[in-house]
Protein backbone atom coordinates (compact mmCIF):
# COMPACT_ATOMS: atom_id res chain seq x y z
CA UNK A 1 0.00 0.00 0.00
CA UNK A 2 1.35 3.44 -0.92
CA UNK A 3 1.57 6.23 1.64
CA UNK A 4 -1.07 8.21 -0.32
CA UNK A 5 -3.53 5.30 0.04
CA UNK A 6 -2.72 5.02 3.74
CA UNK A 7 -3.22 8.78 4.23
CA UNK A 8 -6.58 8.64 2.45
CA UNK A 9 -7.83 5.70 4.51
CA UNK A 10 -6.56 7.24 7.72
CA UNK A 11 -8.44 10.42 6.87
CA UNK A 12 -11.65 8.46 6.24
CA UNK A 13 -11.21 6.53 9.49
CA UNK A 14 -10.61 9.71 11.51
CA UNK A 15 -13.40 11.79 9.95
CA UNK A 16 -16.30 10.38 11.96
CA UNK A 17 -14.25 9.95 15.12
CA UNK A 18 -13.24 13.62 15.09
CA UNK A 19 -16.89 14.70 15.24
CA UNK A 20 -17.32 12.54 18.33
CA UNK A 21 -14.13 13.94 19.90
CA UNK A 22 -15.15 17.55 19.22
CA UNK A 23 -18.67 17.06 20.58
CA UNK A 24 -17.29 15.37 23.71
CA UNK A 25 -14.74 18.17 24.28
CA UNK A 26 -17.38 20.86 23.98
CA UNK A 27 -19.30 19.84 27.09
CA UNK A 28 -17.30 22.77 28.44
CA UNK A 29 -17.18 26.05 26.46
CA UNK A 30 -14.10 26.51 24.30
CA UNK A 31 -12.88 28.90 21.63
CA UNK A 32 -11.09 27.58 18.55
CA UNK A 33 -7.52 27.58 19.79
CA UNK A 34 -8.36 26.28 23.30
CA UNK A 35 -10.39 23.44 21.79
CA UNK A 36 -7.47 22.44 19.60
CA UNK A 37 -5.15 22.47 22.64
CA UNK A 38 -7.59 20.34 24.62
CA UNK A 39 -7.80 17.78 21.81
CA UNK A 40 -4.01 17.75 21.42
CA UNK A 41 -3.57 17.24 25.16
CA UNK A 42 -6.00 14.35 24.92
CA UNK A 43 -3.87 12.74 22.19
CA UNK A 44 -5.88 13.81 19.14
CA UNK A 45 -3.83 15.93 16.80
CA UNK A 46 -5.98 17.91 14.38
CA UNK A 47 -4.94 20.76 12.13
CA UNK A 48 -6.71 24.13 12.12
CA UNK A 49 -7.89 23.69 8.54
CA UNK A 50 -9.97 20.69 9.62
CA UNK A 51 -11.02 21.72 13.12
CA UNK A 52 -12.33 25.27 12.61
CA UNK A 53 -14.59 24.48 9.61
CA UNK A 54 -15.82 21.32 11.41
CA UNK A 55 -16.83 23.32 14.48
CA UNK A 56 -18.65 25.89 12.32
CA UNK A 57 -20.48 23.09 10.47
CA UNK A 58 -21.62 21.51 13.77
CA UNK A 59 -22.83 24.93 14.95
CA UNK A 60 -24.76 25.44 11.70
CA UNK A 61 -26.48 22.09 12.37
CA UNK A 62 -27.56 23.45 15.80
CA UNK A 63 -25.45 20.86 17.63
CA UNK A 64 -23.39 23.64 19.23
CA UNK A 65 -24.29 27.01 20.73
CA UNK A 66 -21.89 29.87 20.20
CA UNK A 67 -21.31 33.38 21.47
CA UNK A 68 -18.70 36.09 21.09
CA UNK A 69 -16.99 37.09 24.35
CA UNK A 70 -14.36 39.69 25.16
CA UNK A 71 -11.29 38.45 27.01
CA UNK A 72 -7.59 39.35 27.26
CA UNK A 73 -8.17 42.45 25.15
CA UNK A 74 -9.64 40.51 22.23
CA UNK A 75 -12.93 38.95 21.15
CA UNK A 76 -13.27 35.18 20.83
CA UNK A 77 -16.08 32.96 19.71
CA UNK A 78 -16.92 30.34 22.33
CA UNK A 79 -18.68 27.11 21.43
CA UNK A 80 -20.57 24.73 23.72
CA UNK A 81 -22.68 21.62 23.21
CA UNK A 82 -26.37 22.45 22.66
CA UNK A 83 -29.22 20.33 24.02
CA UNK A 84 -29.58 18.67 20.61
CA UNK A 85 -25.82 18.13 20.47
CA UNK A 86 -25.88 16.52 23.92
CA UNK A 87 -28.58 14.06 22.83
CA UNK A 88 -26.65 13.22 19.70
CA UNK A 89 -23.43 12.79 21.68
CA UNK A 90 -25.15 10.24 23.97
CA UNK A 91 -26.38 8.25 20.98
CA UNK A 92 -23.06 8.43 19.17
CA UNK A 93 -21.16 7.42 22.31
CA UNK A 94 -23.31 4.32 22.67
CA UNK A 95 -22.82 3.52 18.98
CA UNK A 96 -19.07 4.05 19.31
CA UNK A 97 -18.83 1.74 22.32
CA UNK A 98 -20.67 -1.06 20.50
CA UNK A 99 -18.55 -0.58 17.40
CA UNK A 100 -15.35 -0.41 19.41
CA UNK A 101 -16.18 -3.59 21.27
CA UNK A 102 -17.07 -5.44 18.05
CA UNK A 103 -13.98 -4.13 16.30
CA UNK A 104 -11.83 -5.03 19.31
CA UNK A 105 -12.75 -8.70 19.05
CA UNK A 106 -12.46 -8.69 15.23
CA UNK A 107 -9.05 -7.03 15.29
CA UNK A 108 -7.96 -9.28 18.19
CA UNK A 109 -8.73 -12.48 16.30
CA UNK A 110 -7.17 -11.02 13.11
CA UNK A 111 -3.99 -10.25 15.06
CA UNK A 112 -3.89 -13.80 16.47
CA UNK A 113 -4.22 -15.25 12.95
CA UNK A 114 -1.36 -13.08 11.69
CA UNK A 115 0.86 -14.28 14.56
Amino acid at each position, binding site marked *: MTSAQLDKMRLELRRGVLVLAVLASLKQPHYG*YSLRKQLQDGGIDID*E*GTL*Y*PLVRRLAEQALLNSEWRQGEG*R*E*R*RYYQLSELGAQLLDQLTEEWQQLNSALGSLLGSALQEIK
Partner: protein
Amino acid sequence: MELVKRYIAAVQRELPDAKRDEIGRELTANIMDQLDALAEQQGELSEADIANLLQQMGHPRTVAQQFAPPQPLISAGYMSLYKNTLFMVLGVLFLLQVVDSTSAWLGSSQMSFLLFIKSLASGFIQDVVFGFTSITLAFWLMSRYQPRQHSQCEQSWQPAQLPKVGPHWQHIALQDIFSDLATYLFLLIVIWYPLWLSAEQLANSRFLFTDNAHQLLKWASPLALLGIANSLWQLRKRFWSRNLLMANILINASFVLVILLLTASSPLINPELKIWQGVFDLHQLERAAVYSLVITALVPLWEVVRDIWRLRRLS
Protein backbone atom coordinates in the same frame (compact mmCIF):
# COMPACT_ATOMS: atom_id res chain seq x y z
CA MET B 1 -0.19 42.37 11.84
CA GLU B 2 -0.42 43.77 8.34
CA LEU B 3 0.32 40.27 6.99
CA VAL B 4 -2.56 38.78 9.00
CA LYS B 5 -4.98 41.43 7.65
CA ARG B 6 -3.85 40.72 4.10
CA TYR B 7 -4.24 36.97 4.66
CA ILE B 8 -7.77 37.34 6.08
CA ALA B 9 -8.76 39.65 3.22
CA ALA B 10 -7.44 37.09 0.71
CA VAL B 11 -9.50 34.31 2.36
CA GLN B 12 -12.60 36.53 2.45
CA ARG B 13 -12.33 37.26 -1.28
CA GLU B 14 -12.83 33.52 -1.93
CA LEU B 15 -15.88 33.20 0.35
CA PRO B 16 -19.57 33.70 -0.49
CA ASP B 17 -20.89 37.14 0.56
CA ALA B 18 -23.15 35.76 3.30
CA LYS B 19 -20.26 34.09 5.16
CA ARG B 20 -17.47 36.59 4.46
CA ASP B 21 -17.64 38.79 7.58
CA GLU B 22 -18.40 36.04 10.08
CA ILE B 23 -15.65 33.67 8.94
CA GLY B 24 -13.15 36.53 8.60
CA ARG B 25 -13.88 37.62 12.16
CA GLU B 26 -13.52 34.09 13.53
CA LEU B 27 -10.39 33.30 11.54
CA THR B 28 -8.77 36.52 12.81
CA ALA B 29 -9.50 35.52 16.42
CA ASN B 30 -8.06 32.03 15.86
CA ILE B 31 -4.90 33.32 14.18
CA MET B 32 -4.34 35.90 16.92
CA ASP B 33 -4.63 33.12 19.54
CA GLN B 34 -2.06 31.04 17.68
CA LEU B 35 0.29 34.01 17.42
CA ASP B 36 -0.10 34.66 21.18
CA ALA B 37 0.76 31.02 21.92
CA LEU B 38 3.81 31.24 19.63
CA ALA B 39 4.93 34.51 21.28
CA GLU B 40 4.73 32.83 24.68
CA GLN B 41 7.18 30.18 23.45
CA GLN B 42 9.54 32.35 21.38
CA GLY B 43 9.23 35.90 22.74
CA GLU B 44 8.55 38.75 20.33
CA LEU B 45 7.54 37.58 16.87
CA SER B 46 9.13 38.79 13.63
CA GLU B 47 7.35 39.22 10.28
CA ALA B 48 9.05 35.97 9.19
CA ASP B 49 7.50 34.06 12.13
CA ILE B 50 4.02 35.39 11.23
CA ALA B 51 4.55 34.56 7.55
CA ASN B 52 5.65 31.06 8.53
CA LEU B 53 2.49 30.48 10.60
CA LEU B 54 0.24 31.75 7.80
CA GLN B 55 2.09 29.54 5.33
CA GLN B 56 1.35 26.54 7.58
CA MET B 57 -2.35 27.42 7.64
CA GLY B 58 -2.51 26.98 3.89
CA HIS B 59 -3.26 29.00 0.77
CA PRO B 60 -6.15 31.46 1.30
CA ARG B 61 -8.22 29.71 -1.40
CA THR B 62 -7.72 26.30 0.29
CA VAL B 63 -8.72 27.73 3.68
CA ALA B 64 -11.79 29.38 2.16
CA GLN B 65 -12.80 26.08 0.52
CA GLN B 66 -12.48 24.27 3.85
CA PHE B 67 -14.95 26.73 5.39
CA ALA B 68 -17.28 26.87 2.39
CA PRO B 69 -16.72 23.78 0.20
CA PRO B 70 -17.52 24.43 -3.49
CA GLN B 71 -20.88 23.00 -4.54
CA PRO B 72 -21.13 21.02 -7.80
CA LEU B 73 -23.38 22.57 -10.45
CA ILE B 74 -25.66 19.49 -10.40
CA SER B 75 -25.95 17.61 -7.10
CA ALA B 76 -25.09 13.90 -7.09
CA GLY B 77 -28.73 13.02 -6.30
CA TYR B 78 -29.92 14.61 -9.54
CA MET B 79 -27.05 13.47 -11.79
CA SER B 80 -28.66 10.29 -13.12
CA LEU B 81 -31.97 12.08 -13.84
CA TYR B 82 -30.05 14.97 -15.42
CA LYS B 83 -28.16 12.71 -17.83
CA ASN B 84 -31.30 10.81 -18.78
CA THR B 85 -33.27 14.03 -19.37
CA LEU B 86 -30.42 15.48 -21.41
CA PHE B 87 -30.21 12.46 -23.75
CA MET B 88 -33.99 12.24 -24.16
CA VAL B 89 -34.41 15.95 -24.92
CA LEU B 90 -31.46 15.99 -27.32
CA GLY B 91 -32.96 12.94 -29.06
CA VAL B 92 -36.32 14.69 -29.47
CA LEU B 93 -34.60 17.88 -30.69
CA PHE B 94 -32.76 15.78 -33.28
CA LEU B 95 -36.08 14.36 -34.52
CA LEU B 96 -37.60 17.86 -34.76
CA GLN B 97 -34.54 19.06 -36.65
CA VAL B 98 -34.87 16.14 -39.09
CA VAL B 99 -38.50 17.17 -39.74
CA ASP B 100 -37.54 20.83 -40.15
CA SER B 101 -34.54 20.29 -42.44
CA THR B 102 -36.31 17.68 -44.58
CA SER B 103 -39.30 20.02 -45.17
CA ALA B 104 -36.91 22.86 -46.09
CA TRP B 105 -34.99 20.54 -48.43
CA LEU B 106 -38.08 19.34 -50.22
CA GLY B 107 -39.53 22.83 -50.57
CA SER B 108 -36.41 24.46 -51.97
CA SER B 109 -35.21 24.24 -55.56
CA GLN B 110 -31.72 25.42 -54.52
CA MET B 111 -30.90 23.02 -51.71
CA SER B 112 -28.74 20.01 -52.62
CA PHE B 113 -28.39 16.88 -50.48
CA LEU B 114 -25.09 18.20 -49.09
CA LEU B 115 -26.81 21.44 -48.08
CA PHE B 116 -29.53 19.34 -46.44
CA ILE B 117 -26.88 17.53 -44.31
CA LYS B 118 -25.28 20.90 -43.46
CA SER B 119 -28.66 22.37 -42.49
CA LEU B 120 -29.41 19.30 -40.35
CA ALA B 121 -26.01 19.43 -38.60
CA SER B 122 -25.95 23.20 -37.97
CA GLY B 123 -29.59 23.25 -36.83
CA PHE B 124 -28.98 20.35 -34.46
CA ILE B 125 -25.85 21.99 -33.01
CA GLN B 126 -27.89 25.14 -32.28
CA ASP B 127 -30.57 23.00 -30.64
CA VAL B 128 -27.93 21.15 -28.58
CA VAL B 129 -26.47 24.43 -27.26
CA PHE B 130 -29.94 25.68 -26.33
CA GLY B 131 -31.11 22.33 -24.88
CA PHE B 132 -27.92 21.72 -22.90
CA THR B 133 -27.92 25.23 -21.42
CA SER B 134 -31.60 25.20 -20.46
CA ILE B 135 -31.54 21.72 -18.91
CA THR B 136 -28.32 22.39 -17.02
CA LEU B 137 -29.74 25.69 -15.72
CA ALA B 138 -32.98 24.00 -14.61
CA PHE B 139 -31.11 21.23 -12.77
CA TRP B 140 -28.73 23.77 -11.23
CA LEU B 141 -31.74 25.64 -9.79
CA MET B 142 -33.30 22.36 -8.59
CA SER B 143 -30.00 21.28 -6.96
CA ARG B 144 -29.73 24.64 -5.26
CA TYR B 145 -33.27 25.14 -3.96
CA GLN B 146 -34.83 21.68 -3.78
CA PRO B 147 -32.64 18.82 -2.53
CA ARG B 148 -33.41 15.51 -4.25
CA GLN B 149 -35.96 13.24 -2.56
CA HIS B 150 -36.27 9.58 -3.44
CA SER B 151 -38.93 9.25 -6.13
CA GLN B 152 -41.99 7.03 -5.73
CA CYS B 153 -40.37 4.63 -8.21
CA GLU B 154 -37.19 4.37 -6.10
CA GLN B 155 -39.17 3.79 -2.90
CA SER B 156 -41.58 1.15 -4.13
CA TRP B 157 -39.33 -0.97 -6.37
CA GLN B 158 -39.34 -4.77 -6.07
CA PRO B 159 -36.30 -6.97 -6.73
CA ALA B 160 -38.58 -9.42 -8.59
CA GLN B 161 -39.37 -6.70 -11.16
CA LEU B 162 -35.73 -6.40 -12.20
CA PRO B 163 -35.00 -7.84 -15.67
CA LYS B 164 -33.36 -11.25 -15.86
CA VAL B 165 -29.60 -11.39 -16.22
CA GLY B 166 -28.80 -11.38 -19.92
CA PRO B 167 -26.02 -10.54 -22.38
CA HIS B 168 -24.83 -6.93 -22.56
CA TRP B 169 -26.55 -6.30 -25.94
CA GLN B 170 -29.98 -6.70 -24.31
CA HIS B 171 -29.86 -3.10 -23.12
CA ILE B 172 -31.12 -0.84 -25.94
CA ALA B 173 -29.06 2.33 -26.34
CA LEU B 174 -30.98 5.62 -26.61
CA GLN B 175 -28.99 6.73 -29.69
CA ASP B 176 -30.11 3.55 -31.56
CA ILE B 177 -33.76 4.28 -30.80
CA PHE B 178 -33.53 7.95 -31.80
CA SER B 179 -31.60 7.23 -35.02
CA ASP B 180 -34.34 4.69 -36.00
CA LEU B 181 -37.06 7.24 -35.17
CA ALA B 182 -35.26 9.92 -37.23
CA THR B 183 -35.02 7.52 -40.20
CA TYR B 184 -38.74 6.64 -40.10
CA LEU B 185 -39.74 10.30 -39.77
CA PHE B 186 -37.48 11.26 -42.66
CA LEU B 187 -39.04 8.54 -44.83
CA LEU B 188 -42.60 9.59 -43.98
CA ILE B 189 -41.90 13.27 -44.68
CA VAL B 190 -40.20 12.50 -48.00
CA ILE B 191 -42.91 10.07 -49.15
CA TRP B 192 -45.80 12.36 -48.20
CA TYR B 193 -44.07 15.62 -49.19
CA PRO B 194 -47.09 17.12 -51.04
CA LEU B 195 -48.93 17.28 -47.68
CA TRP B 196 -46.36 19.53 -45.99
CA LEU B 197 -45.57 21.94 -48.82
CA SER B 198 -47.38 25.07 -50.00
CA ALA B 199 -48.47 25.34 -53.65
CA GLU B 200 -45.46 27.55 -54.41
CA GLN B 201 -43.02 25.19 -52.72
CA LEU B 202 -44.67 22.26 -54.51
CA ALA B 203 -44.10 23.95 -57.87
CA ASN B 204 -40.39 24.35 -57.08
CA SER B 205 -39.94 20.83 -55.73
CA ARG B 206 -38.91 17.75 -57.66
CA PHE B 207 -39.14 14.10 -56.67
CA LEU B 208 -36.33 11.71 -57.48
CA PHE B 209 -38.51 8.68 -58.24
CA THR B 210 -41.17 8.04 -60.90
CA ASP B 211 -44.89 8.11 -60.03
CA ASN B 212 -44.96 4.32 -60.10
CA ALA B 213 -42.11 4.04 -57.54
CA HIS B 214 -43.65 6.86 -55.48
CA GLN B 215 -46.96 4.93 -55.34
CA LEU B 216 -45.14 1.85 -54.06
CA LEU B 217 -43.46 3.95 -51.36
CA LYS B 218 -46.85 5.34 -50.32
CA TRP B 219 -48.15 1.79 -49.87
CA ALA B 220 -45.09 1.08 -47.68
CA SER B 221 -45.59 4.08 -45.41
CA PRO B 222 -47.66 2.15 -42.77
CA LEU B 223 -44.44 0.19 -42.29
CA ALA B 224 -42.68 3.40 -41.24
CA LEU B 225 -45.56 4.10 -38.81
CA LEU B 226 -45.13 0.59 -37.38
CA GLY B 227 -41.40 1.31 -37.10
CA ILE B 228 -42.16 4.47 -35.07
CA ALA B 229 -44.51 2.51 -32.79
CA ASN B 230 -41.84 -0.17 -32.36
CA SER B 231 -39.19 2.45 -31.49
CA LEU B 232 -41.51 4.03 -28.92
CA TRP B 233 -42.07 0.58 -27.43
CA GLN B 234 -38.27 0.15 -27.26
CA LEU B 235 -38.00 3.55 -25.59
CA ARG B 236 -40.43 2.40 -22.92
CA LYS B 237 -38.81 -0.99 -22.28
CA ARG B 238 -35.13 -0.22 -23.10
CA PHE B 239 -34.46 -3.98 -22.99
CA TRP B 240 -34.57 -6.52 -25.84
CA SER B 241 -37.21 -9.16 -25.12
CA ARG B 242 -38.33 -11.98 -27.44
CA ASN B 243 -41.41 -9.96 -28.50
CA LEU B 244 -39.40 -6.84 -29.24
CA LEU B 245 -36.85 -8.83 -31.24
CA MET B 246 -39.57 -10.54 -33.27
CA ALA B 247 -41.26 -7.19 -33.99
CA ASN B 248 -37.93 -5.75 -35.09
CA ILE B 249 -37.25 -8.76 -37.36
CA LEU B 250 -40.68 -8.44 -39.00
CA ILE B 251 -40.35 -4.69 -39.60
CA ASN B 252 -36.81 -4.90 -40.98
CA ALA B 253 -37.62 -7.91 -43.17
CA SER B 254 -40.59 -5.97 -44.58
CA PHE B 255 -38.32 -3.02 -45.32
CA VAL B 256 -35.91 -5.32 -47.18
CA LEU B 257 -38.85 -6.64 -49.21
CA VAL B 258 -40.13 -3.14 -50.04
CA ILE B 259 -36.68 -1.94 -51.11
CA LEU B 260 -36.19 -5.01 -53.33
CA LEU B 261 -39.66 -4.48 -54.86
CA LEU B 262 -38.68 -0.87 -55.51
CA THR B 263 -35.50 -1.93 -57.34
CA ALA B 264 -37.61 -4.31 -59.47
CA SER B 265 -40.16 -1.62 -60.42
CA SER B 266 -38.11 -0.07 -63.21
CA PRO B 267 -37.99 2.76 -64.30
CA LEU B 268 -37.15 4.34 -60.96
CA ILE B 269 -35.76 7.75 -61.84
CA ASN B 270 -38.10 10.58 -62.77
CA PRO B 271 -37.21 11.54 -66.40
CA GLU B 272 -38.14 15.18 -65.65
CA LEU B 273 -35.33 15.42 -63.12
CA LYS B 274 -32.74 17.70 -64.76
CA ILE B 275 -30.17 17.71 -62.00
CA TRP B 276 -27.15 15.42 -62.70
CA GLN B 277 -28.38 14.87 -66.26
CA GLY B 278 -25.60 17.06 -67.62
CA VAL B 279 -23.10 14.70 -65.97
CA PHE B 280 -24.78 11.28 -66.33
CA ASP B 281 -27.37 9.92 -68.76
CA LEU B 282 -30.70 8.55 -67.47
CA HIS B 283 -29.60 4.91 -67.86
CA GLN B 284 -26.53 5.48 -65.65
CA LEU B 285 -28.66 7.26 -63.04
CA GLU B 286 -31.17 4.39 -63.10
CA ARG B 287 -28.39 1.84 -62.54
CA ALA B 288 -26.85 3.95 -59.72
CA ALA B 289 -30.28 4.16 -58.02
CA VAL B 290 -30.73 0.37 -58.16
CA TYR B 291 -27.25 -0.25 -56.71
CA SER B 292 -27.87 2.36 -53.98
CA LEU B 293 -31.17 0.71 -53.05
CA VAL B 294 -29.56 -2.76 -52.88
CA ILE B 295 -26.82 -1.37 -50.61
CA THR B 296 -29.49 0.38 -48.47
CA ALA B 297 -31.37 -2.93 -48.15
CA LEU B 298 -28.26 -4.48 -46.60
CA VAL B 299 -28.76 -2.37 -43.43
CA PRO B 300 -32.22 -3.76 -42.42
CA LEU B 301 -31.07 -7.18 -43.70
CA TRP B 302 -28.09 -7.07 -41.35
CA GLU B 303 -30.49 -6.17 -38.48
CA VAL B 304 -32.72 -9.13 -39.41
CA VAL B 305 -29.74 -11.53 -39.28
CA ARG B 306 -28.49 -9.96 -36.05
CA ASP B 307 -31.90 -10.17 -34.36
CA ILE B 308 -32.45 -13.80 -35.44
CA TRP B 309 -29.07 -14.63 -33.88
CA ARG B 310 -30.08 -12.75 -30.72
CA LEU B 311 -33.45 -14.48 -30.62
CA ARG B 312 -31.75 -17.88 -30.80
CA ARG B 313 -29.35 -16.83 -28.01
CA LEU B 314 -32.28 -15.78 -25.82
CA SER B 315 -34.06 -19.11 -26.25
